[in-house]
């Protein structure tokens, strides 16, 4: 029984020029205590799909499809009901720790508010719980730090405050939108370690949005690769790195400079990311794909079981044996 079942999620934005279809039908099941990585480049729709589930789209955004949590569809849920769930059973860590905290309020006020609203705690009890949580995310001198304002903390510490805030109500699902992108590698290592431990201790399911394949390798069991608002490949992290099957995934892996391999020349993916106001016809990756055929221009391939394996989904017309990108990888 999955914790969260997302099917056919679509997000569109009305803009003066056109309707921008940012997300075109993504589906996934999230099991209790598991970790799903959503990987993609800027504009691939990875953040918008999560914001849509929590009712946080911009005013001109519309979401359709379904995201079933405990028998209820999160999309189109009345605000009052949604407020009972988000920040409580489902919580989110935002990308930018500098701008996601309220600069006018102390850390204490921002954290205790969560517990007062969701758990009916008194201010005093809420503060005690908040300090415990700050200690759990290893903020030194938590009892002193809690009375400070966000600008008095470093970037890594602000991100830890955000994580502590998201975990206050011991959520079942934690959505982390690029939680370490704004941080230095040594701080990133601390935060990732923290997420790993918290998942172990609380059994939280994590949806991790990132563009960093290294972070995915360390934290995720399953990975969904998105491009141009569509899912290109959805499989286990082991398969993704060992046997990528989609030309875009292969391209991404070959474009990545790596510490663990010799300095083979990088292979960039030619062209530029699609403009989602005027998306290419057919498969969104077709313009940049070295394996594209006429069929790819005419219609977008469906996300289907790959090689008869229903846990390995792929949206591509090309059989793997015939893929040029695949052969070049084999020779590399």
């Amino acid at each position, binding site marked *: 029984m999955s914790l969260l079942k997302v099917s056919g999620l679509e997000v569109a934005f009305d803009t003066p020029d056109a309707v921008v279809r940012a997300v075109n039908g993504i589906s996934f099941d999230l099991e209790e205590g598991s970790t799903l990585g959503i990987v993609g480049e800027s504009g691939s729709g990875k953040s918008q799909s999560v914001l849509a589930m929590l009712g946080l789209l911009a005013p001109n955004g519309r979401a359709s499809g379904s995201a079933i949590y405990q028998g209820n569809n999160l999309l189109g849920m009345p605000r009052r009901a949604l407020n009972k769930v988000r920040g409580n059973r489902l919580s989110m860590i935002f990308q930018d720790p500098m701008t996601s905290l309220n600069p006018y309020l102390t850390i204490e006020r921002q954290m205790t508010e969560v517990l007062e609203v969701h758990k009916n705690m008194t201010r005093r009890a809420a503060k005690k719980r908040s300090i415990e949580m700050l200690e759990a995310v290893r903020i030194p001198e938590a009892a002193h730090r809690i009375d400070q304002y966000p600008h008095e903390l470093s970037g890594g510490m602000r991100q830890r405050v955000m994580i502590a805030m998201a975990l206050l109500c011991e959520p079942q699902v934690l959505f982390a939108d690029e939680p370490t992108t704004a941080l230095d590698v040594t701080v*990133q290592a601390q935060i990732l370690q923290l997420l790993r431990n918290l998942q172990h201790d609380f059994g939280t399911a994590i949806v991790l949005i990132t563009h960093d394949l290294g972070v995915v*390798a*360390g934290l995720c069991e399953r990975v969904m690769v998105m491009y141009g608002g569509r899912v290109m490949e959805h499989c286990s992290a082991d398969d993704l790195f060992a046997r990528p099957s989609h030309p875009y995934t292969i391209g991404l892996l070959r474009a*990545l400079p790596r510490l663990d391999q010799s300095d083979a020349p990088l292979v960039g993916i030619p062209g530029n990311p699609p403009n989602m106001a005027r998306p290419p016809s057919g498969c969104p990756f077709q313009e940049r794909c070295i394996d594209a055929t006429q069929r790819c221009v005419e219609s977008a391939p469906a996300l289907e079981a790959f090689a008869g394996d229903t846990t390995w989904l792929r949206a591509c017309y090309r059989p793997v044996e015939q893929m040029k990108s695949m052969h070049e990888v084999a020779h590399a």
Partner: protein
Amino acid sequence: MPEQTILSVRDIKVHFRVKAKSKLPWSPSRTLKAVDGVSFDLKAGETLGVVGESGCGKSTLSRAILNLIPATHGEIVWMGKDLSGATTKQWHGVRRDIQMIFQDPLASLDPRMTVGQIIAEPLREHRPEMSKSEMNESVRAMMAKVGLREQMINRYAHEFSGGQCQRIGIARALVVEPKLIVCDEPVSALDVSIQAQIVNLLKSLQQEMGLALIFIAHDLAVVKHISDRVMVMYLGHVMELSDKHSLYAEPRHPYTRALLSAVPVPNPAIERTKVVQILSSDIPSPINPPSGCVFHTRCPIAEPRCSREVPELRTLAAGVAAACLLA
């Protein structure tokens, strides 16, 4: 061709006066030591990578090399000429040979100029003898070189994607045929697939034009890819300066080791089992840096003497130097 040293930086320091903590007018102002005694040589055609976390002084260093932020102490020797105390006019001549590429591709292009005007601007400044048609010619040639279509010459920066904007920035830097380009995080704002395009472009242009590069980045994997030598900075000091192969295969400084172990590797088998050396706490403030070795407060192998003695950057082997008492 004998390898000729084109740039020599000796004990350069950039200190900033910052406001005193107390608001009283007689309280002493404090000093922020952004760069504190950095020395290195750069050979023609060589790439020096500079890595470090935010606040380590790598960007300030790059600006000090071009005198965009004047150094408070130290020498910059360009092609055998000492530039300390050089006049604005002398610097103007030097900047034809040393160009810069900036981090934010869009913000570093003037929104009210067309691509053609942007790329021609250094020519108007440094090669005023060129005729309009000659300029136009070399702008078009440069656009072709960096992979921009000629028809784009009359467009404005906002019409381009991040990767294309960075190509414009590269064209602008290369059009005056410099000998050295200082690249300050040139690919950090780009997606992986585009980042690879730009890294490859820089590499091939470097070979074609015999350029030297100072490549500043926080991504150790990108730096590994492009550099010949790598300099690791922490709190304004050089921790290690070594050949790329030695630095990545056998890091000598505990800070380099910690940095390298923190980089996530896209391989689940390695990444799930590896032991990351987690550094305690945050980077200390450069206004009040630790005594002795600046890294000793976070160093996993620090000894009592590390808080007293300042380690020199010592040569440990051919092409390997680290500033650690215990290396």
